């Protein structure tokens, strides 16, 4: 066991009968262990090649010229001067896009390079390739673009007004989700309501967008890129490049974090266009500033919620209106609206419901996927309102949530049966029972106070607050999406040792998927050495590294491919041994009989042959929801988490110090317990960041803070100690019983922190991130 500080160790406290692994092996590094990351040593020394580390002899550098205006008509583009800059090898505009000048995750509505209009500040207009990045930048500055600035829609609350300029035809509505369940005219003795506003958060992955495009002899291109889903990139690139998939080959380069921000295309088509034009390898790497314009953000949201309840706090009805600013292009806004609508009332039993969720176009930066995907914004509203309800009926925040918490066998607000564990009450109880940090004594070291060595207080005006939140999140893709992963597994003898090779296109972005792939192979095949093949499009799609889905779906595919390989091996062994297949298993490179006796070696069965099988895995189908009522089995799995936050707030200065952030989460089955805890730490930090400090400030369509000086993310000093409790209630429908892990902590941590600050300062605080002036009321 690895050393860990006392407060953060995983504690697997419950196990409700996980399905046994199909082969009980004694191989180390299997499921349930926490083997070291296979890429760990390379990452700590820095040898691991991130997309920005790639190099090719005779490569040139590409840069993007972007729009300075949120909305403008392009009157003309003159590239003559840029072309005369020594060292420049190509300057491209919309006219140079050979295929369809359009891309998009769900709708191809975004031009590769702007044509006629620019719809947000930072929209790509032209590309330059040159022998040095600085040369390319200077040449780009000499491209003359004549803009006619147009009125911009920058307040999403007015995007659907009759007189609002249309960002796209026919209008500015991306999606309206209407959900109606139960009695719409019901009333209740206790009614609470509120309005909540959530600012725009950025994924702020530390490794900015980067890629290397290499033109190939067959006229195609090989792109090495940091991404979350190679095959969806490939599909969009083929459209824009006008090429078949065989000619557009993608390879996963090292990914410096993702968090949703690499779901949409960035350098992909641009670098490829330049490579195909110049005949040279082209590298593109965004600066931090460009990165803030180069990917979608988390949707800012405006939420209006009302709960009706009995006097004992039991919910009777909920009404909610959610407005999400999608920015200038569709990206994944429709799916985010889907989540905000179908999951937007939290993990509660509510018989009568009316929800209207809207995503709209504006001339603000495009918004799309970020960890928590639509549930994050909604949770700030339903959790704040739960606390209001607690106050109104005289309950504490834990009890009111437990009283209304979803249980297995309930139906959620879309009428979907919750057909595996829903431990809402238990998760809340666990965090409520965890020891609280010691009370601050009167002569506390000022460094432990909000403001710290800024010496802003000696404790006067500092008030402690405690807050709770609970959430649930859909795992995997929803609403009828054909969500699957592919895995190819090969087993052979190499140098006298059995080696399994696992090949998927599923992106490792730091979450530890490749470790999980190895663990599954070791468990199913009983071999220790598992090689993870580089990720590329030479194998079928691995689906997206998002929606907390990879361990579940790609894990399922790897398991299926392993089982197929094992079936072939055991059938051969059975034939040569004259035994029944059902009495044989694979363990420690041996074929073992029913009572564990070694019958023969894997080497004898395999000989010189390799056994290779490819399998696709699909989770249970999901379904579109009814357009009138929003009812339907929209999701495949739900994951639950709860947080308790403890804060000290200087109510005179508005400074906050998070003293503790404790959490409990059901993960179904912890395939890799250390990685599970790492995900919970990371997710919790990002939720806390949104509550207290992270916001892209956009005024009149312009981003005001595209740098790490002004866009703040939590540092090691901001993160409090965390007690993490992990439950393992197996989901009988999922491989090994797993439940997605990465997102729930991002959803429940922020509302718990906000609740704690509210409790400390006594103000309603209806906007996040909470700023000092909100706390002081000045």
């Amino acid at each position, binding site marked *: 066991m*690895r*050393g*860990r*500080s006392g407060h*953060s160790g995983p504690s697997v406290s419950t196990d409700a009968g996980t399905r046994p692994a199909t082969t009980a092996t004694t191989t180390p590094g299997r499921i349930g262990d*926490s083997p*070291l*990351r296979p*890429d*760990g*040593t390379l*990452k*700590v*020394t*820095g*040898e*691991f*090649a*991130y997309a*920005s*580390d790639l*190099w090719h002899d005779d490569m040139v550098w590409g840069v993007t010229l972007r729009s300075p205006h949120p909305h403008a008509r392009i009157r003309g583009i003159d590239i003559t001067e840029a072309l005369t800059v020594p060292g420049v090898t190509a300057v491209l505009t919309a006219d140079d896009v050979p295929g369809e000048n359009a891309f998009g995750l769900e709708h191809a509505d975004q031009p590769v390079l702007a044509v006629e209009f620019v719809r947000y500040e930072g929209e790509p207009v032209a590309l330059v390739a040159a022998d040095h990045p600085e040369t390319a930048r200077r040449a780009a500055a000499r491209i003359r673009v004549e803009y006619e600035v147009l009125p911009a829609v920058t307040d999403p609350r007015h995007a659907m007004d009759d007189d609002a300029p249309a960002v796209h035809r026919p209008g500015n509505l991306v999606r309206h989700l209407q959900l109606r369940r139960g009695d719409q005219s019901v009333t209740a003795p206790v009614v609470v309501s509120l309005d909540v506003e959530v600012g725009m958060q950025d994924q*702020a*992955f*530390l*490794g*900015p967008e980067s890629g290397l495009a290499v033109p190939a002899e067959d006229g195609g291109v090989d792109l090495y890129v940091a991404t979350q889903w190679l095959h969806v990139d490939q599909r969009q690139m083929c459209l824009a490049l006008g090429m078949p998939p065989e000619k557009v080959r993608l390879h996963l380069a*090292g*990914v*410096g*974090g*993702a*968090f949703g921000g690499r779901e949409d295309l960035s350098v992909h088509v641009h670098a490829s266009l330049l490579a195909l034009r110049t005949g040279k390898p082209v590298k593109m*790497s965004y*600066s*931090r500033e460009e990165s803030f314009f180069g990917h979608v953000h988390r949707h800012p949201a405006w939420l209006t919620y009302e709960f009706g309840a009995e006097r004992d706090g039991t919910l009777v009805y909920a009404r909610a209106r959610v407005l999400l600013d999608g920015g200038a292009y569709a990206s994944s806004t429709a799916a985010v609206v889907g989540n905000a609508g179908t999951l937007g009332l939290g993990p509660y039993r509510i018989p009568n419901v009316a929800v209207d969720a809207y995503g709209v176009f504006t001339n603000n930066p495009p918004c799309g996927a970020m960890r928590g995907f639509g549930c994050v914004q909604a949770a700030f509203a339903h959790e704040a309102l739960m606390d209001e309800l607690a106050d109104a009926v005289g309950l504490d925040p834990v009890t009111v949530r437990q009283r209304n918490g979803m249980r297995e066998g309930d139906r959620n607000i879309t009428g979907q049966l919750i057909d595996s564990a829903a431990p809402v009450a238990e998760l809340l109880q666990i965090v409520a029972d965890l020891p609280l940090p010691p009370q601050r004594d009167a002569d506390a070291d000022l*460094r432990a106070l909000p403001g710290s*060595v800024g010496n802003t207080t000696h404790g006067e005006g500092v008030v402690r607050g405690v807050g709770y939140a609970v959430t649930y999140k859909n795992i995997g893709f929803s609403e009828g999406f054909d969500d699957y992963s592919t895995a190819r597994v090969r087993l052979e003898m190499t140098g006298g040792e059995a080696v399994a090779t696992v090949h998927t296109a599923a992106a490792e*972005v*730091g979450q*530890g998927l490749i470790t999980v792939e190895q663990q599954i192979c070791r468990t199913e095949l009983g071999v220790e050495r598992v090689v993870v093949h580089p990720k590329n499009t030479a194998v079928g799609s691995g689906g997206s590294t998002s929606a907390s889905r990879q361990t579940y779906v790609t894990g399922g595919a790897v398991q299926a491919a392993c089982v197929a390989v094992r079936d072939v091996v055991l059938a051969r062994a059975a034939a040569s041994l004259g035994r029944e297949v059902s009495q044989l298993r694979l363990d420690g490179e041996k074929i073992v009989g029913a009572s564990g006796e070694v019958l023969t070696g894997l080497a004898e069965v395999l000989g010189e042959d390799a056994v290779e099988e490819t399998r696709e895995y699909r989770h249970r189908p999901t379904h579109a929801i009814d357009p009138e009522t929003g009812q339907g089995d929209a999701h495949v799995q739900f994951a639950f988490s709860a947080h308790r936050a403890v804060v000290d707030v200087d109510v005179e200065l508005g400074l906050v110090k998070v003293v503790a952030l404790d959490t409990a989460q059901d993960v179904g089955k912890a395939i890799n317990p*250390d*990685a599970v805890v*790492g*995900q919970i*730490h*990371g997710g919790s*930090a*990002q939720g806390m960041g949104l509550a207290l400090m992270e916001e892209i400030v956009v005024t009149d369509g312009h981003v005001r803070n595209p*740098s*790490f*000086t002004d866009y703040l*993310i*939590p*540092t*090691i*000093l901001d*993160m409090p*100690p*965390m007690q993490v409790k992990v439950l393992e209630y197996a989901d009988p429908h999922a491989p090994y019983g797993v439940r997605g892990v990465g997102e729930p902590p991002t959803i429940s941590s922020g509302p718990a922190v906000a609740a704690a600050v509210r409790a400390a300062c006594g103000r309603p605080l209806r906007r996040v991130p909470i700023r000092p002036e909100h706390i002081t009321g000045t």
Partner: protein
Amino acid sequence: MDSQITLRVDGAAHPLAVDTRTTLLDALRERLRITSPKKGCDHGQCGACTVLLDGRRVNSCLVLAVTVGDAEVTTSDGLAVDDVPHALHRSFVEHDAFQCGYCTPGQVCSAAGILAEARAGWPSAVTPDVAADTVELTDDEIRERMSGNLCRCAAYANIVPAVADVARAEGVRR
């Protein structure tokens, strides 16, 4: 304007001509193809580019290559001797003190720097006795001194014990 310099990096000398405005980070990454230090911001805000300059940590994006002179530049890669990982490398791996790993070579160099600071008795804002000969690297000291290295994956809870273990082995922590 170009200047002829020799950069001594991880034990090897590299003569090269650089534009005087070139940062140490760009000289390492783009001229010498030494990509162990990463670029997260290029503005001294994230710490991903941290290297050691004669044993002291610097943000290499804030240092002009021409100012380095004879100083020895050490990257995280250079902390490994003869391909044997440094104790910090092993500790970071064993504590799972990273996820994506992009910040990690910078974290490791920063950690190597704070071990040296503690041995030399350099106090920080949280050091109780600023006159002491050596500083004990308590968890508070580690957090304070490592706070210039951002980790978006927030592996912080594991970075602290990863550094603490090595500090203990090196006698700057009980």
